């Protein structure tokens, strides 16, 4: 089993239960999931999340931080982070599935849903019996969701939804979608639970991807799609609601990215210790050691960020800006480690027989989704200067 990288004894900061969660998730993934990844990625045949989701559910890997009364483990945020780290060590598409299910589908139902909605959907999502997706991004509005074009119009006890959502993880296979749309009457953004098969609701896969090929992503179409008032998230009003969900998923990414980085480092370390050139192992050369050491330093700093952020989440004190910093930093670490590991593996580094090239391609998605690297810079820039730099008046001469 993978030993893990723990140069600063970060393990000692975890409880014995948290370490046990990590080991059991790691063991399960190594035996059941890892062997499926290369072919799924190579052939762009997404993993069967209908089956994998049920296994994840049995282990309590979905909605880990949501209370037991809704069929979830009721664990803490550090545990959720550990799960994300382990799954992304295998492949980012697995972490997408876990973070989307937990942070973007279960979290809004738990936080903004009615008691009936919680009872109806959360246990089924936790057990993997149903799969959810999250419809926020639109073809014309990625980083700027506040300008969304999807509309909701109240009509008696129903709402009529219109719009298109794209780059939606698991869009094509989802049984339910959390869809965000602007109420044409009060101009506020509202959230709806749209079930598969609802008239006017279509789900399509996007293919020919160069990243996240072991997972599914797609498009949701809403054409005069009618959902009942019962399916509206009653406590979600305004853009803050969907953004708060992103905080959950971004937190998961900050742990997950370090998982991918750890796998790249481990692969490069083992490879350079074994592979000989000019009569000596690659790891004996200063140029190679420098690269390995830089990876180790970045990973170690990232691990400490994750742990501290996890504690802040558990205390209910984490700010969106702190989450941004961890997401931005740790995805950069993963991007750097994946590329450096790929480089250290030489020609073999471009083969899918080794993980770095796959992580390297996956991380491009992670770098961009859930707030691009640049958007997190602007969030942090606003936090320290007090001046927002997202939006400005364009003066055309």
């Amino acid at each position, binding site marked *: 089993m993978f030993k893990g990288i723990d140069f600063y004894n970060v393990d000692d900061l975890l409880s*014995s*239960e948290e*370490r046990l*969660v990590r080991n*059991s998730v790691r063991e399960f993934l190594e035996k059941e999931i890892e062997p499926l990844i290369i072919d799924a990625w190579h052939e762009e045949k997404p993993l069967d999340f209908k089956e994998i989701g049920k296994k994840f559910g049995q282990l309590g890997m979905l909605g880990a931080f949501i209370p037991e009364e809704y069929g979830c*483990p*009721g664990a803490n945020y550090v545990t959720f982070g550990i799960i994300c780290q382990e799954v992304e060590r295998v492949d980012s598409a697995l972490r997408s599935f876990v973070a989307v299910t937990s942070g973007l589908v279960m979290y809004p139902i738990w936080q903004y849903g009615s008691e009936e909605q919680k009872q109806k959907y959360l246990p089924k999502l936790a057990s993997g019996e149903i799969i959810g997706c999250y419809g926020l991004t639109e073809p014309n509005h990625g980083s700027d969701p506040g300008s969304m074009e999807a509309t909701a119009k109240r009509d008696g006890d129903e709402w009529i939804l219109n719009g298109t959502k794209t780059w939606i993880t698991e869009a094509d296979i989802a049984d339910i979608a959390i869809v965000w749309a602007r109420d044409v009457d009060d101009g506020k953004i509202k959230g709806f639970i749209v079930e598969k098969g609802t008239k006017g609701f279509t789900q399509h896969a996007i293919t020919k991807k160069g990243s996240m090929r072991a997972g599914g992503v797609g498009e949701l179409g809403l054409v005069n799609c009618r959902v009942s008032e019962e399916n509206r998230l009653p406590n979600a009003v305004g853009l803050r609601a969907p953004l708060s969900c992103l905080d959950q998923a971004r937190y998961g990414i900050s742990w997950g990215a370090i998982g991918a980085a750890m796998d790249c480092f481990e692969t490069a370390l083992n490879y350079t210790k074994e592979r000989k050139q000019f009569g000596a192992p690659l790891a004996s050369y200063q140029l190679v050691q420098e690269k390995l050491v830089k990876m180790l330093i970045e990973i170690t700093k990232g691990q400490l960020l994750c742990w501290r952020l996890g504690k802040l989440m558990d205390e209910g004190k984490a700010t969106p800006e702190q989450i941004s910093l961890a997401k931005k930093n740790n995805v950069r670490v993963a991007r750097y480690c994946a590329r450096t590991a790929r480089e250290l593996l030489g020609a073999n580094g471009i083969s899918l027989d080794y993980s770095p090239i796959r992580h390297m391609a996956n991380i491009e998605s992670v770098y961009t989704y859930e707030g691009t690297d640049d958007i997190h810079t602007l969030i942090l820039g606003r936090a320290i200067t007090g001046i927002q730099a997202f939006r400005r008046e364009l003066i055309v001469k």
Partner: protein
Amino acid sequence: MNIIVLAKHAPDPESEINVASDGKSVDERGLVFDINDWDRYAIEEAIRIKEEKGGEVVVVGVGSKCEDTLRKCLAMGADRAIKIPVDTSLDAYQTAEVIKEAIKDEKFDLILAGMMSQDLNNAQVGVLLAAMLDLPFATAVSAISSIDDNSLTVARELEGGYNEEVTLPIPCLITVQSGINEPRYVSIMGIKRAKTKEMKEVDVKPTISTLEVEKMYLPPVKKAELIEGDPSEIAEKLIEILKDRGLV
């Protein structure tokens, strides 16, 4: 049915193994510890019997660092754990002796253990314990075919693909072969439940030492040999090698 399971916190044989600077032990820095693979099957078998017939599963571990493995067994479904915080290391007699002392007040029908440990491969602790407790035992059990209040019928794995069916009176001890079942994974819900289960430390010490390590070393690296020549020469050389090694 009350069952005691022996579970060892053992290093994964696929970890990075180096001899320590004293030349008599293994450097633990490169080792990844987990429940001994055979014991994983033993605990699973015990939990399945309990789920079917009721009773209690008590898991016993030896070693100052065995807590993670005991907690894992509790998370899988064992009811309570006994930790014996003494490092008996390579001495199987000592391990069996401290277990015997630690469970002397326990009422049990069956003791289950893995056939051997993945690090030392001695396959001695189970049978030594059976002898110390004067219990009937069976080793390398590949299936439990029936259990009633008075006896247990099991299949033992023999050499050459043969099996032997034996019936033992209860109480007894069996050591199980890997593959007897498919062990469950530990769930986060199970880990949470395990938090409240009892883990008792029993401080007992071995009375004698039966083993002294003189030297620990890594086996010499075997090298591949490239046989050269025309096909008939290669064939001749190959036959010679196979005969030399008693392979044909």
